[in-house]
């Protein structure tokens, strides 16, 4: 795409110079190293989707990483993306509803894990309202209860920081830093957060074995959970009502926030439906569900067994709950623990690279 534009530009310039000699043909050509991350077959994905307008490069990812961990982007200089998406907790924050944004006000939803999002092409956020990472990032950057930033002030800060300025000029062709580039760089970094080296992955790749208990748990997972938490990414990337609530509050000022995906699609079947979260690294990402209502995986299994609330939009698989006995429960939990990827956590710890 970029080369195509350059080509067009060059043709345009040479055409123009044929008539008038007032265009400088010496456009600086930026040299960045594009790459595609190595993928494990255990992710069960076909390729690495990325938007043509923002192909990842080594330099772009470095810049994005720096931005991700930089609290100076926030209104009070104290909150970075990592404040709510901490690498040690698989990029979550360990609380139900964060109160650590710039305003100290409680958020309405819990911070989801941030990895394997390149494949989340059916929409981001719990209700799928954001089309892509590039568009999403302006949300946390400017939300008054998250980073509360003014985009123009971010640009001023970055323009006046010589190291940033230099990095932006390497990664992007434009002379001036623009908000779009800030978001694109962060997106490049986020797309490289790929978790694919858990014990489960090594087992699938025949590098390690699972215990009998774990294998039993795997079979229970396949039977009861995999229709939504689909093997590979451990999410079907789709939206379901998994029976958390019977009815949904709808205070006017929150614009349908408690109605799940219905707020985005106005489709009655999406009432109370949320994106299926991945089960990868699930042992690290408590509390659980879109509002962090469950503190432990035990509570989650209690919900699936006894807590399902019936209503019109409930996913049909869950009408009768998921009955499992104590032994099966232990097996399932043992299997879920094999989805923890300590290599991923280690590699993305800000101190380890």
């Amino acid at each position, binding site marked *: 795409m970029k080369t195509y*534009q350059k080509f*067009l*530009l060059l*043709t*345009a*310039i040479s*055409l*123009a110079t*044929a*008539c*008038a000699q007032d*265009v400088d043909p010496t456009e600086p050509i930026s040299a960045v190293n594009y790459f595609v991350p190595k993928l494990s077959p255990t992710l069960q994905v076909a390729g690495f989707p990325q938007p043509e*307008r*923002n192909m990842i490069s080594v330099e772009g990812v470095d810049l994005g990483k720096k931005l991700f961990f930089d609290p100076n982007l926030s209104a009070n200089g104290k909150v970075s993306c990592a404040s709510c998406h901490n690498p040690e907790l698989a990029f979550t924050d360990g609380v139900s509803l964060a109160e650590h944004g710039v305003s100290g006000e409680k958020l309405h939803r819990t911070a989801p894990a941030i990895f394997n999002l390149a494949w989340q092409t059916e929409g981001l*956020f719990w209700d799928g*309202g*954001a*089309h*892509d990472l*590039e*568009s*999403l*990032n*302006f*949300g946390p950057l*400017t*939300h008054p209860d998250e980073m509360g930033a*003014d*985009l*123009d002030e971010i*640009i001023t800060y970055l323009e006046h920081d010589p190291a940033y300025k230099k990095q932006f000029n390497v990664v992007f*062709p*434009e002379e001036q830093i*623009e*908000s*779009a580039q800030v*978001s*694109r760089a962060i*997106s490049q970094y986020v797309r490289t957060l790929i978790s694919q080296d858990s014990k489960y992955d090594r087992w699938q790749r025949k590098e390690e074995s699972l215990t009998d208990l774990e294998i039993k748990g795997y079979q229970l997972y396949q039977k009861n959970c995999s229709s939504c938490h689909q093997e590979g990414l451990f999410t079907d990337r789709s939206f379901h009502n998994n029976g958390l609530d019977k009815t949904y509050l709808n205070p*006017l*000022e929150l*614009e349908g926030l408690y109605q799940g995906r219905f*707020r*985005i699609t*106005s489709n009655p079947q999406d009432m109370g439906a949320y994106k299926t979260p991945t089960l990868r690294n699930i042992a690290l990402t408590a509390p659980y569900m879109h509002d962090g209502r469950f503190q432990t995986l035990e509570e989650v299994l209690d919900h699936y067994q006894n807590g399902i609330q019936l209503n019109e939009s409930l996913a049909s698989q869950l009408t009768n709950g998921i009955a499992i006995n104590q032994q099966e429960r232990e097996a399932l939990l043992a299997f879920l623990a094999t989805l923890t990827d300590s290599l991923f956590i280690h590699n993305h710890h800000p101190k380890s690279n």
Partner: protein
Amino acid sequence: MKNLVYTALLSSILMCSSCNDVEVPATMAMDISLEHKLDGQTLELNGKSFTLPSGEDFTPKKFKYYISNVVLTNTQTGEMYEEMDSYHLISEDGNKSIDLGMIPSANYNQLTFSIGVDEVANGKTDQTGDLDPNSDMAWNWNTGYKFLVLEGEFTNKNTTERQGLILHIGTNPNFQTITQPLTGVRAGKAISLILAADLDELFKDPNTLQLSDLESTTIMFGEMAAKVAENYSEGFITVK
């Protein structure tokens, strides 16, 4: 970047065609300015009160909208000029004009433009120029742009209390394209067009809005937003 490509490309074509001697210059300058009126008076955001078609009083505080995909046509000859990357944020307290620059000369007799942002551009917000999300026209939780924003205060006739009005209209179904006849545009002659935006039309024709009777005066999505969009699809902006 894209902009630059097109300008370079276009100017090269234009420069070359102007190498030949012709009577009518190959290009002509055109700009469009917008005038905002409410209740027959010039719009002001400084606390002045206006009367809405419903008879309710209204003090506007913010008014902005996108004009996009500007096209000029000569319906007889088929000559047409389409502005590239044509997205213009118009606001009462900011920019109120569209400079088309030098465009190919023709006796244009029709102007087409849209209110809002087309589906492609509305599908992402990491954009620049007038689509830069720094203008507070991008929605963050539901990717896309607000097409038209009107905010202010009115007196509720039932409660006699002051109440806020927030109109944030967007989403693809509310993207509206408008076609207007043009008179007096002559090939090769610089021209300034004036478009009049009549804010009364947001509140009537075909859907009358009686603010005091609305369940919510924060109108962003759903049925009410669609009604306002239907209102602005005709009679809201006209060539003066």
